[in-house]
């Protein structure tokens, strides 16, 4: 099951040229880009691992793309995303975030049901890959 999180996630995978055009757009808006990765793509997992510091004062996409490539080389079977942060007062938040790398095999999520007091049903999601320890979650598909 293909995970759809962030901008462009219903589109086909972006090529590197398309990614750099998007980064260029973010830089033109004055947003600072950063690269993050995870192997726990649960929708409620807001905090992915940072790949280096957020990059401020860039003018060109080449610098960000360089970090994306380095991250892909180090974590080929992880989810990697680019965040663009707007520091303008009033926003001070992510304005754009999109996935630029995903594992070859995405098993998806299972709906879990829990009986509560008085037969109340509580629902949750858990990733099939999430049962394995961190770092081994998406390697089996290779």
């Amino acid at each position, binding site marked *: 099951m293909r995970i759809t999180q962030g901008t462009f996630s219903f589109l086909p995978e972006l090529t590197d040229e398309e990614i750099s055009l998007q980064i260029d757009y973010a830089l033109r808006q004055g947003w600072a880009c950063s690269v993050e990765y995870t192997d726990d793509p649960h929708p409620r997992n807001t905090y992915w691992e940072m790949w280096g*510091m957020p990059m401020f004062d*860039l*003018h*060109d*996409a*080449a*610098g960000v793309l360089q*970090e994306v490539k380095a991250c892909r080389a180090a974590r080929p079977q992880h989810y990697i995303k680019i965040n663009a942060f707007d520091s303008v007062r009033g926003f001070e938040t992510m304005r754009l975030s999109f996935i630029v790398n995903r594992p070859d095999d995405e098993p998806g999520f299972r709906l879990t049901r829990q009986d509560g007091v008085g037969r109340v049903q509580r629902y949750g999601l858990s990733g099939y890959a999430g049962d394995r320890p961190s770092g081994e979650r998406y390697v089996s598909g290779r």
Partner: protein
Amino acid sequence: MNCAQVPNVDLAALYRDSGIGDVLAELDRDLVGLVPVKTRIREVAAHLLVERARASLGLAGGAPTLHMCFSGNPGTGKTTVALRMAEVLHRLGYIRRNHLVSVTRDDLVGQYIGHTAPKTREVLKRAMGGVLFIDEAYYLYRPENERDYGQEAIEILLQTMENQRDDLVVILAGYAARMEVFFESNPGFRSRIAHHITFPDYDDAELLDIAERMLATMHYRFDADSRRAFADYLALRTRQPNFANARSVRNALDRSRLRQANRLFATAMRGGAAIDAAALTLIAAADIRGSRVFAEPLAASDEAPVSSHATRAVPAPPG
């Protein structure tokens, strides 16, 4: 698309469309002298144009390496040209962005182990797509300290210069003699830089031309007398030690402006008439001949001609 026809390219049309002529003409107009520099820029422009023509016929030759080294005496315009270079290369279509990141050793080299690499990488990332200008590049390498972190910065720099030639143009600048030492101890650097451009010293006529241009931008002017006085000044000053070409000219002009202000003020205090724009913009011969350069070779006791004002800051040389 003229794939079916005999493929040919109209270089002249390409030249017209690219606007390179304007760039070169502007350079000629704005910079005095510097013939070798202009020649090299013209060569680079022609090369880029031909490369574009070849690419349109499918004769890819790979992007040329444009890393440069500017060496020359103080005040010969290295920094000025580097600042223009980003614009020139951008208009020639070689770099994607018209921006220049100017750094010195402090911006690249860290203060403790593990600090240098991220710092250098960050600077390189900031410069991507444009020009990275490293002023006084020889400070990167400190031969007297073998544990100096500069070496690490140099290695990262070299690696990026080699691998990301499309993304970045690196320009090193520094005084000729010290750059020579720098390259001798870093042979990798010399070979990775395709263009070594030497900035010649200006001759007296060029310096006078520079002086007039500087004055024009500051809304001052010479008259015939003061132009002659400044030519005399240059003739004396160029023979003195520590002459720094255009920078010395700028300093001399700044001091002349001080003397001019002092003269106008003294005249007004003595109850002179109200002054007009012409008087305010004129650097008089006396303002220039007030310089110590004229006083020193004589070694005479008399003060410089103009400075009759009682509160003169610089005391006359004893003797």
